[in-house]
């Protein structure tokens, strides 16, 4: 044998199957593994339902239950799609081996499939068949066997099937020990189901469902089951797109569609590299399989019907699968120096801006848990949806001399505050926002309760808040001057209420003959009260009364006398079939003159009767407390007071910075030395590399001013900040003594604000309540931006 003959022409570098087992060591959770298999099913079913209107698509995931799981148990994912031919199966599996991924699709048995199945167990069976075939084709991928034989040959099996049957099934067995341990937890299947509902919200929800915003949000109405139980999509609980608030004298809708068309691009179907122009051969992998693909950024921004500390933010999807949820990166502003500042939420740390952005063309990481945020595709989306300027208009104007006009900025500015009432679309109870109650309703929304699918309940609560706080809307205007003028001209028949040819006054003169008077029934009497009443929104709920549960409602009446035995009462109570209704007269002395809240009046006045009817032992005080404890939104505590104050101070700084940017020197000189030093210290604490000298010169110092500094401005330079500058308070036009009163009044508010922000936590409830009232008064005094 010559030396040349012993030299091989090639080396066999086929990777050993053990590599897949090693790759499977990556930290993929159970639901993430299942997603890789479900993605294949959804790819197929979306297409199958498009071509066959009779197909009722379904994907079934079967997991061994806690009591039965062992290594020999199976994890099964099956769909009723069209199935594959032998050639298609071979292509799908071999494509997976080569790491090939189809664009516009989620999986196609790619590397994700291989890693996911290997992560679950060592034997994977793929069984598939098409309508009309009389056999299932079954491929068994046994990693250990492949390793033992050092072979990539996969045995095929053929089993009888009914010609009507079709679909693909992937089953994994010889499960990994850690998966078995995981499935032994009774809650693991529930957790999987919940995660799948979150990840596939778009795929699973009905675009024609009854929930507000259904059509705008869209959905593909696919069905997914885990152990026979339907996976419920986590549907965003948003305000209807037809709702709006006023911002900059224009209507700002509560939801907005995002649609950014992009130019088509060319994608290498082998390695995934994108090209802006057509290439015959991929520069990276030399593949000639390069196809033109449509690209676009689509989705929506919306306002959630409740605010929450963590449950808000954006969902970013790729091919219908949520890659990240509750993402808040678009609320960050990255300054020119690279510092990142969180701009939202501003209030109590509670946010409610949500949305979904589909980025089918942007790259994701291998585990599909995040987009590549350094990619040009992601950065372009950020530019279009959020913009590169601060969301806060004053800051943007000061720093860049223009405002951020992105969709996110418009949303941020219209809905940045969580104040109760219709102005910001936030449910309230007449005194505070009812965050807890609004969230409880959202739970009912998510459990499918039809009464909570539209935003009606939340809207009513926002409107009722305004009614309770500011009184009912004004009655229709009495005959106007215009009517008098018309009468003077002999054209009285054209006036208000005279469209039918005779005036209201004529009707009054000739009343209809009185109907036969019948005594009013109790039903009629309470119906009459309700006609003149506003329901306190957070009270329409079950409340524990001793050992009983009762539906509890408090109505605030106006313009109607509440009577009992012919005597006018501050409250009347009606208890029927487990429902307690308490009617409170808003004119009653406790409310009108002593500022009690209607709920407190209702509880105190009705407590003896409730105690009697529900046979509750103990004191009246104990009963009232036990009921109030069930209304956490009503609680007054020091953290709520401090948060409110910090929000007010933030608003003051924002507004003030707008003023100081125009005349920084004058404002700076009005500050005491102590306030100047405090502002500088604070600036260095929160922004260590701040250029303080520049901040003093350009007015930016106002963003670091404490309450003491604002107080300095009010006392030393009232003409700078009153009369519509920082505060609405009238000043210049008044006499000297009254001017002093005005300064004293605003100063008193600010002194309280200082107490709220920098003082030790307060425990005295009366004082906390007083400070909250001050905050309300001060808020009303500040010029709105």
């Amino acid at each position, binding site marked *: 044998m010559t030396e040349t003959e012993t030299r091989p022409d090639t080396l066999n570098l086929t990777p050993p199957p053990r590599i897949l087992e090693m790759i499977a060591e990556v930290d993929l959770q159970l639901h993430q593994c299942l997603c890789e298999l479900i993605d294949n099913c959804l790819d197929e079913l979306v297409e199958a339902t498009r071509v066959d*209107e*009779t*197909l*009722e698509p*379904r994907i*079934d995931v*079967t997991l061994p239950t806690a009591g*039965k799981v062992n290594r020999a148990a199976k994890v*099964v994912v*099956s769909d*009723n799609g069209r199935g594959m031919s032998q050639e298609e199966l071979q292509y799908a599996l071999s494509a997976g081996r080569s790491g090939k991924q189809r664009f516009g699709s989620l999986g196609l048995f790619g590397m994700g499939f291989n890693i996911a199945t290997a992560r679950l167990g060592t034997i994977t069976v793929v069984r598939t*068949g098409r309508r009309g075939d009389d056999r299932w084709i079954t491929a068994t991928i046994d990693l250990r066997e492949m390793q033992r034989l050092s072979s990539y040959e996969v045995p095929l099996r053929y089993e009888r099937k*009914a010609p*009507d*049957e*079709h*679909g693909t*099934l992937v089953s994994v067995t010889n499960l990994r020990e850690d998966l078995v341990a995981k499935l032994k937890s009774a809650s693991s299947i529930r957790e999987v189901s919940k995660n799948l509902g979150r990840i596939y919200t778009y795929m699973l929800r*009905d675009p024609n469902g009854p929930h507000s915003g259904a059509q705008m949000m869209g959905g593909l109405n696919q*069905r997914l*089951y885990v152990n*026979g*139980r*339907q996976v419920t999509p986590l549907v965003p609980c948003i305000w209807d797109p037809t709702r709006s608030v006023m911002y900059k004298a224009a209507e700002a809708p509560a939801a907005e569609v995002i649609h950014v068309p992009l130019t088509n691009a060319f994608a290498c179907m082998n390695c995934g590299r994108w090209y802006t122009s057509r290439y015959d051969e991929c520069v990276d992998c030399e593949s000639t399989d390069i196809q033109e693909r449509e690209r676009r950024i689509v989705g929506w921004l919306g306002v959630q019907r409740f605010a929450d500390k963590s449950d808000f933010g954006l969902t970013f999807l790729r091919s219908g699968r949520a890659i990240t949820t509750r993402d808040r990166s678009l609320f960050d502003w990255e300054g020119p120096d690279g510092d990142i500042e969180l701009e939202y939420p501003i209030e109590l740390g509670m946010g409610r801006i949500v949305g979904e952005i589909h980025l089918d063309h942007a790259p994701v990481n291998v585990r599909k848990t995040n987009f590549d945020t350094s990619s040009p595709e992601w950065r372009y989306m950020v530019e279009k949806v959020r913009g590169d300027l601060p969301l806060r208009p004053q800051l943007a104007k000061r720093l860049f001399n223009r405002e951020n006009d992105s969709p996110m900025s418009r949303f941020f500015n219209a809905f940045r505050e969580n104040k109760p009432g219709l102005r910001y679309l936030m449910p309230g109870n007449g005194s505070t926002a009812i965050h807890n109650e609004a969230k409880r309703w959202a739970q009912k929304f998510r459990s499918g*309760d*039809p009464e909570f699918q539209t935003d009606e309940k939340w809207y009513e609560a926002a409107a009722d808040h305004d009614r309770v706080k500011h009184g009912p809307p004004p009655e229709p205007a009495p005959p106007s001057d215009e009517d008098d003028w018309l009468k003077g001209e002999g054209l009285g028949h054209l006036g208000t209420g005279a469209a039918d040819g005779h005036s209201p006054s004529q009707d009054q003169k000739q009343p209809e003959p009185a109907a036969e008077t019948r005594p009013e029934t109790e039903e009629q009497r309470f119906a009459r009260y309700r006609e003149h009443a506003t329901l306190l929104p957070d009270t329409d709920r079950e409340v524990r009364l001793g050992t009983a549960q009762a539906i509890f409602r408090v109505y605030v009446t106006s313009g109607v006398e509440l009577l009992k035995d012919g005597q006018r009462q501050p409250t009347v109570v009606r208890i029927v079939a487990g429902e307690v209704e308490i009617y409170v007269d808003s004119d009653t002395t406790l409310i009108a003159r002593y500022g009690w809240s209607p709920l407190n009046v209702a509880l105190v006045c009705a407590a003896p009767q409730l105690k009697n009817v529900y046979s509750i032992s103990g004191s009246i005080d104990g009963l009232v407390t036990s009921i109030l404890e069930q209304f956490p939104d009503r609680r007054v505590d020091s953290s709520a007071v401090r948060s409110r104050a910090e929000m007010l101070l933030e608003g003051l700084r924002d507004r003030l910075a707008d003023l100081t940017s125009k005349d920084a020197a004058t404002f700076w000189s009005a500050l005491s030395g102590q306030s100047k030093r405090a502002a500088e210290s604070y600036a260095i604490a929160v922004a260590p590399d701040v250029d303080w000298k520049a901040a003093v010169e350009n007015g930016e110092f106002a963003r670091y001013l404490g309450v003491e500094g604002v107080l300095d401005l009010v006392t030393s330079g009232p003409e700078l900040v009153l009369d519509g500058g920082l505060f609405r308070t009238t000043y210049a036009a008044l006499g000297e003594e009254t001017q002093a009163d005005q300064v004293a009044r605003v100063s008193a508010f600010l002194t309280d604000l200082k107490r709220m922000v920098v003082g030790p936590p307060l425990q005295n409830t009366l004082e906390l309540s007083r400070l909250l009232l001050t905050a309300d008064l001060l808020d009303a005094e500040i010029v709105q931006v």
Partner: protein
Amino acid sequence: MAALPEPIRLEIFAELARHFDAMRWEEVSSPAATEMYDRFVKDPKIGGRLARFMPTEKIRPWIKDGPAKQYRRALEGVGPMAQMTTREYPGPQSVVRLAMGSGWALRAQTLEVKPMRCVADGPDGESAFITWGPMSGLQGMVWHACLRRAESESQLITIAVTKPNTAPLPDDDWRLALSLATILRARCEQVTYMVSRKATSDSRTV
């Protein structure tokens, strides 16, 4: 109270069929169904209309024992609600074919419900009793198979356990069904029995 007029009864059936279709009623769990009955009672288009013809406490049992049970049969193409649904099972003939073989056919006038059952005729003149339903209805199917076996020692009997997808039944379930069938000298088959949407969207009539 006046009796429920037929046109109104059918309108309420149609309204309920719409709800049942949307939620895939045959898959709804018992607790979820209980909650749904409460909602139907409160629904002005259902409970609200029925309240004119029956006491409030009768509305819920009327829905539960009437239309709710009719729906599953309607999916089989049986009963007054069958024309109102937008979904359907492949039907009894399909089960006969899937469980017995392509030469077998449903014998006319032998179809019965609760559980679904019929007589089928084979290509060589033989006949068989066949009963079918999901695993949750195995008890009823076995009972009717027992009754048949009590009538005739030689009758061919097939119990077909239906499943909503192509995945095989869980091993434990299948072993149980096979064991019970063996005791009765009956055949046991598992049959994929998937609901499909009716071909035209406007096929629902009252």
